[in-house]
């Protein structure tokens, strides 16, 4: 009886996993086929293993350029966000200005009330008036700004747990506040920093709405925007479309597979806090 329920459990769960994995495998499989194969034999394996669609995607469709755009924008926004968030999180948790720090933290909590999506229009107007519309900064600046609150919450929660004695010892050795941050605090927070880095980077890498709205020229597009534009344009060119979907999704899947523990913990911690 027990054994039977055990087996049934795994059968049901495998059914669920199939629902998750099949669409991804289907796209992966299709990305090696030519168009007629996709339509006529959607279930079959590719007739022959050919990278034509990928070569096409990099050649005619400039997917390489969009990939670099995504990489460049996501990296700068993530690094800038981490530097700003670490500095402010350190100041409000460890430095002795309790009143101002409380106020600052409260101000950051306001962000939980409102989603970036509902600020699209005022943001769009602001970005136009600042003259950064249709430049990489149109994304880098808001991405950085929107990543600050959640990064500060996660960092602050960790920083509070560092014993005061460590800093006291550092002060004895004649360290300034910058020395404390650089030599004592930063090495300790490295694991948390890595988690925040990955989560913010993935968030920026995947972002679509702002990227679609704040950039107008094709050359600046990020991957998600490019893939959606592909779909609208080449509704029937399945091979090129599935290859570009894979090029956009694979880096995320690989990074996730390698760092799943940190990613799952980080996301869980961040969302329950909110």
């Amino acid at each position: 009886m027990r054994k039977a329920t055990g087996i049934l459990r795994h059968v049901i769960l495998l059914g669920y996993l199939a629902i998750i994995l099949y669409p991804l495998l289907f796209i992966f499989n299709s990305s090696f086929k030519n168009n007629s194969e996709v339509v006529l034999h959607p279930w079959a394996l590719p007739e022959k293993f050919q990278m034509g669609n990928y070569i096409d995607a990099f050649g005619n469709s400039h997917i390489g350029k969009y990939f670099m755009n995504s990489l460049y924008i996501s990296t700068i926004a993530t690094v800038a966000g981490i530097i700003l968030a670490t500095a402010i999180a350190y100041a409000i948790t460890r430095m002795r200005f309790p009143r101002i720090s409380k106020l600052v933290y409260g101000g950051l909590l306001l962000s939980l009330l409102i989603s970036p999506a509902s600020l699209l229009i005022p943001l769009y107007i602001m970005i136009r008036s600042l003259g950064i519309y249709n430049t990489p900064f149109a994304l880098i600046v808001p991405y950085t700004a929107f990543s600050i609150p959640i990064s500060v919450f996660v960092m602050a929660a960790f920083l509070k747990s560092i014993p005061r004695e460590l800093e006291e010892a550092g002060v004895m050795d004649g360290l300034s506040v910058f020395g404390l941050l650089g030599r004592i605090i930063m090495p300790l927070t490295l694991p948390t920093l890595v988690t925040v880095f990955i989560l913010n980077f993935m968030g920026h890498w995947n972002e679509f709405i702002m990227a679609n709205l704040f950039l107008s020229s094709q050359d600046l597009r990020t991957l998600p925007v490019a893939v959606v534009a592909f779909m609208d344009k080449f509704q029937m060119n399945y091979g090129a479309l599935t290859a570009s979907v894979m090029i956009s999704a694979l880096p995320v899947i690989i990074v996730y597979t390698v760092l799943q523990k940190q990613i799952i913990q980080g996301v869980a911690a961040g969302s329950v806090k909110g």
Partner: protein
Amino acid sequence: MNKVLRNPYAYVLFVVPAMALYLTFYIVPMLNSLKYAVTSWNGINEATFNGLDNFVKAFHDEKFWIAFKNNIYFVLFSVFVQIPVIIFFSILISGAKRFLGFYKTTVFLPSVLSTAIIGVIWQFIYHPDAGLVNQLLRMFGLESWTHGWLGEEGYSMLAILVTNGWQWTGFYIVLVLAAIFAIPKEMQEAGEMDGAIGWRKARYITIPLIRPVILVVMMLSITGAMKALDIVFIMTKGGPFGSSEVMATYMYKQAYSMSLFGYANAISVIIFLFTVVLTVIFHFLTRRTEEVDY
């Protein structure tokens, strides 16, 4: 010690840049949104104050109500379909002696993918001829059940809800799993001694003890449902004939297709107010369930 940590120059240097960016791009737009909401404005000329006209307009706007209704569908689907599925699979996975890590990793996978990519993948699945759903139905001889899922008014919203569920269910399962594993072993064992095993154990021990996290998950999925934008935008653009429009996509269109920036901001404020109202109602309903004491 205190002298070093009371260095005002360092404090200003650490706090001001991040705060400046946050205030400029988060708080100021929020206030601007409220400001524009009570104006008539095409984005080019001066905005003119028109009081609550935009809100009155929304109230009489049939298309807005369709969008609003779709947001409510979104919320209902989240609460009555997704949540039971989440609880069911969480309990199922938590009891697995083997492959637990593998299950957890796989169910979480869709929530790290870009919504844009998921939208494109699912367009393939819903494709009328070559799509997976219709192919499967034909394989089982259910030709009459096939539909042009995203192209039919009666099915476009449902198709989007299923896709959204596919994306987020695993994310919530992982949250619930964390809570299940936090239940002390003694509690579990005591229950089993009293004869609570299998689904009885789930009903009388596990579910009551993980109530707080279930409420968090409900809250997250309700607010998520109110803000839904990209998935609809990518899959149907709100079509066909506005049948899958939600408030956020309607707002987007008012601004960028119609240049009605005042009206669009008013809709944005309405979304915000509804989210707050739902949150308050939710807290009111669940006030009696405080943290569980073990």
